[in-house]
């Protein structure tokens, strides 16, 4: 494998890791506040559909993004109603949301577009296109030189290859996702809101005693989770691909959940975990099987590896993953 191929795989890794990272951070906010969220998948799927649908109808991808975030937050609200207001089982609520999204998206897509559960393909303005950073070799240089972009990049030096192929040329949402990591860290560990949010996931009674609303904090946390899942879904349908197709999240919400556990509920580690799982996806996309020291590893191992790694981490054989203490328990204020 030459250097350029390696960079291309890493480039694909960044693209694959972006929706995982956004969803993972969404789960981070929610679970740090004591609300289990296995509905990440459903929220992403819903957002993917509505962002693509609105972008297709209006031709404006930003309106699409807003619609995606809105629909994802609606599901978050439902999750909050069930698990915070009515103190229902958060896991069951999450399962219900996933099915709701998987059914409703196809149902509405059929009713609106009659294309077998997909949206029409999106073109230029309906998509988040790659941003060319300054001094990078991008499509405009290729056009000016009237040669294919891949040739130009092949001729460039190593640093320019790295910069143009790996760092430049992603859609804005990729950069948003990366910036969301330090922002999440700062909110959680350097603000009063973050301190309270973490406290509510560990010991809600203490927060309540201090006169801060447990419900308010938890709703805020799942609201943020809704926004992040919305961006993740919009990226899937309008950035990574050009339009919505049935079940397009294909388990990414669960991989994000796995990454969250792998990262032990910490933002910077979440970035690492998502890049690792993104790399596995990128490798599985590019190669059918991998030769490692004479042994051929089937592609299915790549598919299963995120889950296997997570189980190993959960089992506590390699460092122990301890979730927020009040996770999954509805808070009953004393009456």
């Amino acid at each position: 494998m030459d250097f350029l191929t390696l960079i291309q795989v890493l480039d694909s890794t960044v693209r694959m890791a972006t929706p995982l990272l956004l969803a993972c951070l969404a789960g981070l906010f929610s679970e740090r506040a004591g609300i289990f969220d296995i509905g990440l998948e459903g929220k992403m799927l819903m957002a993917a559909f509505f962002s693509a649908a609105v972008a297709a109808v209006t031709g404006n991808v930003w309106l699409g993004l807003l619609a995606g975030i809105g629909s994802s937050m609606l599901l978050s609200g439902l999750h909050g109603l069930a698990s915070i207001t009515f103190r229902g089982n958060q896991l069951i609520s999450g399962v219900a949301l996933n099915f709701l999204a998987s059914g409703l998206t196809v149902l509405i897509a059929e009713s609106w577009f009659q294309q077998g559960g997909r949206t029409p393909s999106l073109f230029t303005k309906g998509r988040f296109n790659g941003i060319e950073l300054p001094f990078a070799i991008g499509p405009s240089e290729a056009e000016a030189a009237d040669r294919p972009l891949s040739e130009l990049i092949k001729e460039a030096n190593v640093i320019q290859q790295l910069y143009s192929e790996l760092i430049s040329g992603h859609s804005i949402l990729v950069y948003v996702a990366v910036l969301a990591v330090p922002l999440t860290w700062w909110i959680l560990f350097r603000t009063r809101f973050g301190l309270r949010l973490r406290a509510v996931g560990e010991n809600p009674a203490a927060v309540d005693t201090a006169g801060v609303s447990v419900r308010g904090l938890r709703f805020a946390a799942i609201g943020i989770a809704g926004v992040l899942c919305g961006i993740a879904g919009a990226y899937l349908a309008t950035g990574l691909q050009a339009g919505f197709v049935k079940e397009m999240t294909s388990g990414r919400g669960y991989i994000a959940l796995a990454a969250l556990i792998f990262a032990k509920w910490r933002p910077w580690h979440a970035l690492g975990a998502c890049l690792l799982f993104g790399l596995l996806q990128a490798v599985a996309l590019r190669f059918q099987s991998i030769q490692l020291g004479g042994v051929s590893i089937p592609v299915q191992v790549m598919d299963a590896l995120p889950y296997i790694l997570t189980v190993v981490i959960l089992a506590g054989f390699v460092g122990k993953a301890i979730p927020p203490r009040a996770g999954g328990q509805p808070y009953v204020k004393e009456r």
Partner: protein
Amino acid sequence: MEKMPKWADVVLIPVISLLLAAIISAIVILLIGESPMEALDLMVTGALGSTYGWGYTLYYATNFLFTGLAVAVAAHAGLFNIGGEGQAMIGGLGLAIVCLYIPFPHWSIALLVAAVGAGLFGAAWAAIPAYLQAKRGSHIVITTIMFNFIAAAVLNYMLVSVLKPKGAMDPATAKFPETAQLPSLHEILAPLGIEFSKSAPANVTLFVGLAACVVIWGLIWHTPLGHEIRALGKSERGAVYAGISPVRTVMITMLISGALCGLMATNNVMGEAERLVLNATEGAGFIGIAVALMGRNHPFGVFLAAILFGFLYQGGAELALWTNIPSELIVVIQALVILFTGALDNMVRIPIEKIFLAFRKENA
């Protein structure tokens, strides 16, 4: 004193939840420009109006009986087994290996041995999450979700690279030998003089499913083990005080639960497809969650809920065939049922409890 009579908890609340789910489904159908009444009519005639319809309804119901019972048994011990899908996939793998490599003289022996194979494989797939929950405290919901995906990868690998006959294109095993093919309801009922559709897939495993209901009912309420399972589900500390080992009980419960999911393969793999295909489970493992929730974790409730979901699946397929409503409508209904009978249970329960309390005060 109990807040409300038992019948309200067992009958009234599920019925109200179901009605709420039905009303919202009707609104969804209206919004996509179809008539809910016509849809219901089509579903009833399609699923219950002929022995062909019944054959499919009962076939689906048999799948849901197994997975519903599996979720219910685990729920009695306070465990949420969301891994039914993976356990059923691996159960199918075990069944396929038995049926392909052991020559059987008669279907009845084949069914017996294949059921053991499917149950063992399903139980084995539940064993690791169970062990991790019992011994290491790893949350069983997360581990069983992960095992669903691992199961899909294992099945994919086995079908594509190992079990696929040479020269075949699609990832599936060869057809099972004739002696390992189960009699359908048509063949069973014909000697009794009852006409039943020839092409419907309902088969002898329906009775296996019904027997499983009875066995699980006996197990949960009339054996020491059932007592231990329920005690653990009510209070782990109480169970420990009563001398019950949580590790042992969690393991046994999950093994039973996994085996039940594995047993589903006798219906969908052995009874219907007669070979193992990639997407044999079709989400039945997840429908088990809705079935158990609706059935209040009681085998009889599970039986009723399984029939209801069998009706929904067959009716939904008919809808997709004759109208513009895609079969995904059923997924929405399923989601609403899980939402109302599971997560939003308190929304229905609290007002009803208040009504009963108010009545009681008046009478006192």
